[in-house]
């Protein structure tokens, strides 16, 4: 290993600009002639839109245009598309209502955009926005997930009876029912996975610029997947041809899923720019982000785990209601189905699993992927019910899990819920976690806490997830309406430096460093001579972007494939220059060498010859002599579409300390052992784990989106929605194992979400372990002080 190669904690090359204030985010861009948009949003969760009076606003100082749904309809602008179709048990397709980019006759959640004011300055637009008069006829709203399917509740869409978008199932019902009939013990659990708000620190922002003279449309936007944004907005909403539509996403200040989707505001800006002939900018204020960024989670489930007398898992049954919000966000239907219930095998050999999911519409912000996306919901359910089962059986929760592990020699392993696991050694991760967390010392620590009047608890969670969102063929069968490969171009410049162009797009993950390490290692080029380009549809061939922990395993593999092509061509060039046969050329450490000789050429020299082809096997024009002829240049492109997902896994141990007097829960220690396959940059992987774990702890202890019964978002700002802060968190103990992934040339697995997926159940299991001593047996997260205190009070009252 070199100090910049694979396995080295190379300091990030992109950091120089961020630490000096030279990052380049969308809101930092100012285009000549730019004007500003402010959206008028519904303050009603459900209402008929009676009228919008824009007259006064339109004549306010600086106002260029005030546009409403009427203009959208008149111009024939399409609605926002959904990228994934789900088929119900009865064979019917999901209900797919239209989502106009500005509300037409009805509003369906607080924040629904009803009009846009465009003015010379943002302040003028804000001033004028106050003059737009919107008249509503309020309708009763349905908010709560579990209530949506009940009889007699308000209906969000006439075409969706009982507010049901689809009723879907996975697994085999009969064998599962049989397992329960034969079980020695059944553990049951009702579980709520509360709604979360992503809150990337950079609010969404966009500038649309339509140039009438050329017909070119450019959209600068905060986006994790620029090509997908172009495809969806261009083809389905704007009817803007792909070759005349460029999407640029510069530095992106975090996404966590929320910046994947085509949002109404982006479409409105593009359409409005075409109407007024000027670039238009919009940046969300945080309160808009809270209302309109796609939310995450929001499930209500019932689960049952069947076991034999020794605690061997026989079957798992799950019934879930998943809230999709008022409209179908781009990947909304995928999250509570194939990203969720396919994970119910966990790390275990459970032979029979059956799950049903009802996805429902409510008068709330649409729900889509948020870090983990379905996998946290599955893992939370599974790891909670296992811990509960261990308690009921009087078994050590770690040992109960160990008893049910898929063995290291059982891979590839087909689960009963569609997935084929690639590789794993679950016991090794658990052993390491028990060791790092000093499991042995827990009882002593519990006693020490008790002496301070505190309740200490320990909790476990053994997450697994399907990452590397791909493969296209399988995704297509399951309802994807796009492919899920990744592209890469590796371009040698004439003087030997390398430009790598990827269809992935970093929004904090450090691609510029990790991808450069790959290329540096693979092609023997100094790291500082490699530059990574992302986030611009005009520069990269195509791409599906960054989400689902896919960038390294899919995007990185595409880079390595392209680099292999470079080596292949380089060998031919070197063979010519060294007057040897191609078969005798070896490539290592950046040098092409004639085997068994000291005749060698550096790859930079080969690149130079390719661009200054004076001594080069150029085509002669005589086909008989051109068998080995080469085109000039040294640039190769590759697409990578893996044959399967990859399956990182981990073992997490959390200890909490609870002040029973106030209900305050403190994370006393947190251990995360992860196996994400081969590691390219350990520093970056560890950083991803830290960040992921905090989002998981955030869900367990702090975060929750709260609506009142009328659909007003009570947790609509950082004053009310509890974001994890530095003083809420401990330092983490981390460890890694490396079980290589056989599904991609790098042997890597995703690492971006496992921390979030694994942390939440570990924390809540620890909270329940601590509270068990005062009689609390169940608990709905987040474990806020008030909720913990109330649980203790209720348990005490029940005991009396």
């Amino acid at each position, binding site marked *: 290993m070199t100090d910049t190669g694979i396995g080295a904690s190379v300091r990030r090359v992109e950091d120089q600009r961020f630490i000096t204030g030279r990052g380049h985010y969308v809101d930092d861009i100012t285009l000549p002639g730019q004007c500003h948009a402010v959206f008028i949003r519904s303050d009603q969760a459900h209402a008929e839109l009676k009228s919008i009076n824009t007259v006064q606003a339109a004549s306010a100082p600086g106002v260029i245009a005030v546009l409403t749904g009427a203009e959208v309809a008149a111009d024939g602008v399409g609605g926002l598309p959904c990228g994934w179709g789900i088929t119900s048990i009865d064979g019917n397709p999901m209900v797919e209502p239209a989502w106009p980019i500005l509300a037409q006759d009805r509003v369906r959640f607080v924040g629904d955009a009803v009009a846009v004011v465009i003015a010379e300055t943002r302040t003028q637009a804000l001033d004028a926005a*106050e003059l737009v008069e919107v008249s509503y006829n309020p309708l009763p709203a349905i908010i709560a997930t579990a209530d949506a399917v009940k009889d007699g509740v308000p209906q969000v869409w006439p075409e969706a009876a009982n507010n049901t978008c689809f009723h879907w199932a996975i697994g085999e019902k009969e064998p599962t029912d049989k397992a329960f009939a034969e079980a020695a013990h059944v553990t049951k659990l009702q579980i709520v996975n509360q709604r979360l708000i992503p809150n990337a620190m950079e609010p969404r922002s966009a500038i649309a610029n339509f140039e009438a003279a050329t017909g070119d449309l450019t959209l600068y936007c905060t986006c994790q997947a620029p090509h997908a944004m172009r495809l969806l907005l261009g083809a389905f909403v704007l009817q803007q041809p792909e070759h005349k539509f460029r999407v640029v996403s510069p530095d992106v200040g975090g996404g966590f899923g929320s910046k994947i989707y085509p949002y109404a505001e982006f479409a409105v800006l593009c359409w409005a720019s075409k109407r007024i002939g000027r670039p238009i900018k919009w940046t969300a204020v945080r309160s808009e982000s809270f209302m309109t960024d796609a939310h995450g989670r929001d499930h209500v489930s019932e689960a049952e785990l069947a076991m034999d007398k020794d605690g061997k898992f026989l079957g798992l049954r799950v019934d879930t209601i998943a809230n999709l919000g008022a409209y179908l966000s781009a990947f909304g239907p995928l999250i509570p189905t194939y990203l969720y219930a396919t994970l119910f095998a966990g790390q275990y050999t459970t032979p029979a699993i059956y799950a049903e999911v009802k996805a429902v519409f409510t008068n709330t912000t649409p729900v889509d992927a948020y870090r983990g996306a379905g996998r946290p919901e599955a893992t939370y359910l599974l790891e909670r019910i296992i811990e509960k089962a261990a308690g009921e059986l009087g078994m050590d929760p770690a040992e109960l899990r160990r008893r049910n592990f898929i063995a290291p020699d059982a891979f590839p392993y087909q689960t009963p819920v569609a997935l084929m696991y690639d590789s794993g050694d679950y016991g090794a991760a658990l052993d390491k976690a028990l060791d790092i967390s000093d499991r042995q010392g827990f009882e002593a620590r519990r006693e020490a806490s008790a002496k301070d009047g505190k309740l200490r608890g320990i909790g476990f969670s053994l997450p697994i997830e399907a990452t590397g969102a791909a493969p296209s063929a399988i995704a297509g069968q399951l309802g994807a309406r796009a492919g899920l490969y990744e592209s890469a171009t590796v371009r040698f410049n004439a003087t030997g430096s390398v430009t790598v162009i990827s269809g992935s797009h970093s929004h904090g993950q450090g691609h510029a460093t990790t991808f450069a390490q790959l290329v540096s290692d693979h092609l023997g080029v100094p790291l500082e001579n490699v530059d990574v380009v992302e986030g611009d549809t005009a520069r990269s061939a195509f791409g599906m972007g960054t989400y689902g922990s896919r960038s390294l395993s899919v995007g990185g593999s595409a880079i390595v494939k392209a680099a292999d092509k470079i080596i292949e061509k380089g060998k031919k060039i070197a063979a010519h220059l060294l007057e040897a046969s191609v078969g005798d050329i070896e490539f290592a450490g950046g040098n092409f060498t004639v085997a068994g000789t000291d005749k060698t050429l550096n790859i930079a020299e080969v690149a130079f010859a390719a661009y200054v082809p004076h001594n080069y096997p150029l085509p002669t024009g005589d086909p008989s002599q051109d068998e080995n002829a080469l085109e000039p240049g040294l640039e190769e492109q590759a697409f990578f579409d893996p044959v399967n997902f990859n399956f990182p896994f981990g073992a997490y141990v959390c200890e909490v300390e609870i002040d029973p007097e*106030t209900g305050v829960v403190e994370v006393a220690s947190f251990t995360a052992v992860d196996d994400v396959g081969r590691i390219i940059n350990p520093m970056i992987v560890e950083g991803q784990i830290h960040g992921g774990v905090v989002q998981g702890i955030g869900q367990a202890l702090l975060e929750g989106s709260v609506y009142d019964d009328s659909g007003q978002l009570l947790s609509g700002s950082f004053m*009310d929605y509890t*974001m994890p802060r530095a003083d809420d968190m401990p330092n983490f103990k981390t460890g890694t194992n490396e079980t290589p992934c056989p599904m991609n040339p790098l042997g890597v697995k995703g690492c971006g979400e496992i921390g979030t997926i694994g942390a939440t159940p570990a924390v809540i299991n620890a909270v329940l372990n601590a509270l068990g001593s005062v009689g609390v047996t169940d608990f709905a997260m987040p474990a806020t002080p*008030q909720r913990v205190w*109330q649980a203790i009070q209720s348990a005490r009252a029940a005991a009396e």
Partner: protein
Amino acid sequence: MYSFEYSKPASLGEAESAVSEDAILLAGGMTLIPTLKQRLASPDQLIDLSGIGDLAGISISGDTVTIGAMTTHGEVAASSDVQKAIPALAALAETIGDPAVRNRGTIGGSIANNDPAADYPAAVVGLGATVKTNKREIAGDDFFTGLFETALDEGEIVTSVSFPVPEKAGYSKFPNPASRYAIVGVFAAKTGGGARVAVTGAGPCVFRVSDMESALDGNWSPDAVAGISVPASGLNEDIHASAEYRAHLVTVMAKRAVAAS
């Protein structure tokens, strides 16, 4: 923000002549500016008090700590004089907002605004302080009159707050997990005139708990207040804390405030 005019008088006299019905006084701005940003207030004029030199500073005289209205929370927290004379007051200032907020926010602005979840009202009442204005002196007990309401007249300007040095005092705060404002903050002081217990955050306005005060008069210890609770009715409720939980926290924080003294 709505449009407004801005002035920065150099003296109290200039400020007095600038005030009008449509003007708002600007101290540190830590509450006012966010309010303006949300368009919840629309003054014609903002009168910035930061140009009046006499309004900032900390002085100790005999058994009194006097803090100028424009003194920031950070200055109070870091003042060795305050730390020595009334450590609980310095500690309270250290819990307000975050460091950047403490660098701007002022005691005068805080008490004039009288946010029900602000910390300073607990100290003003808990210590029996005196609020001085450009017109008069107002006893701390009479200053806070209701939710965001004070005894200040229209345009009256707080100039300083004088805190008598207590024998002992402690402040214990249970912060809102999201905003970090006080869900409940209890300031307990053993003063020459008897024990004082002032509660902020729990109700619409800071209030005293006379049962606790009497108990502490006889026995200055956490145990003295452990069994005394306030009724939940009338206390604030929000998504983070019910009235019952707040009532419970009043007792817990009171114990801890006494323990911290």
